[in-house]
């Protein structure tokens, strides 16, 4: 069973998005233990789309689709009218750098990689659509270490 919704390309959409995930978890009986991690990953991917989608088609929205799977969820974020950018290929941040060398930003994708069971990127040329899908389950490897 899956549910899908469109969200405005703005940070102000975050409360609506968190409401969408929470309602889905409740309706589908998904274990809330992984909800905060799912919200985290969705926020990181969505805000990237907001920040770097400035050249996207005016009025375009981001589609978020959640599907219940055994022990967790699969989530798809689809961003139409954009240029391709494979977020899964971005190198890790240097988390050992001293504070003097630290700059805000660049940590979101680094953290996602450690929190999800799996993630992948696909670009649909005809629709100029970036599609990022991730899976998070209680039994996943990240669940042993992550929230």
């Amino acid at each position, binding site marked *: 069973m899956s549910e899908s919704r469109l969200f405005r390309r703005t940070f102000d959409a975050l409360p609506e998005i968190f409401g969408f995930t929470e309602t889905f978890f409740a309706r589908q009986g998904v274990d809330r233990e992984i909800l905060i991690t799912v919200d985290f990953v969705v*926020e990181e991917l969505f805000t990237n789309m907001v920040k770097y989608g400035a050249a996207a088609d005016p009025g375009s929205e981001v589609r978020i689709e959640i599907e219940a799977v055994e022990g967790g969820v699969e989530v798809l974020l689809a961003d139409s009218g954009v240029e391709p950018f494979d977020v899964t290929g971005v190198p890790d941040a240097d988390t050992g750098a001293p504070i003097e060398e*630290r700059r805000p930003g660049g940590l*979101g994708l680094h953290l996602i990689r450690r929190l999800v069971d799996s993630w992948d990127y696909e670009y649909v040329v005809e629709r100029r659509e970036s599609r990022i899908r991730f899976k998070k389950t209680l039994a996943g490897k990240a669940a042993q270490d992550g929230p």
Partner: protein
Amino acid sequence: MLAIEQGAQGVVVVKGRLDAAQCPAAQSFLDKAQGTVSLDCSGLEYISSAGLGVLLKTQKRLLAAGGKLRLTGVNRHLQDIFQYSGFDQILEIEPAR
């Protein structure tokens, strides 16, 4: 939603979710903090990478002036995010009991 306010004995109390939409309010509040600042996170449920940016900017400013940021009551989600991002090396963190 996020609530951030001055508590007793100079402690800053933060509650709710520090997501990208709430960061401007949190940054604006913390920009006024001086010296060694104790941030009570026992009511902070969630932080994203945007929230980490707020803490980093605050810690750098306070350290440059001889102060620092100290986090208390840090829950499991926050501890994991701090560990995976290396922030446990640049912030003083006291886990929730």
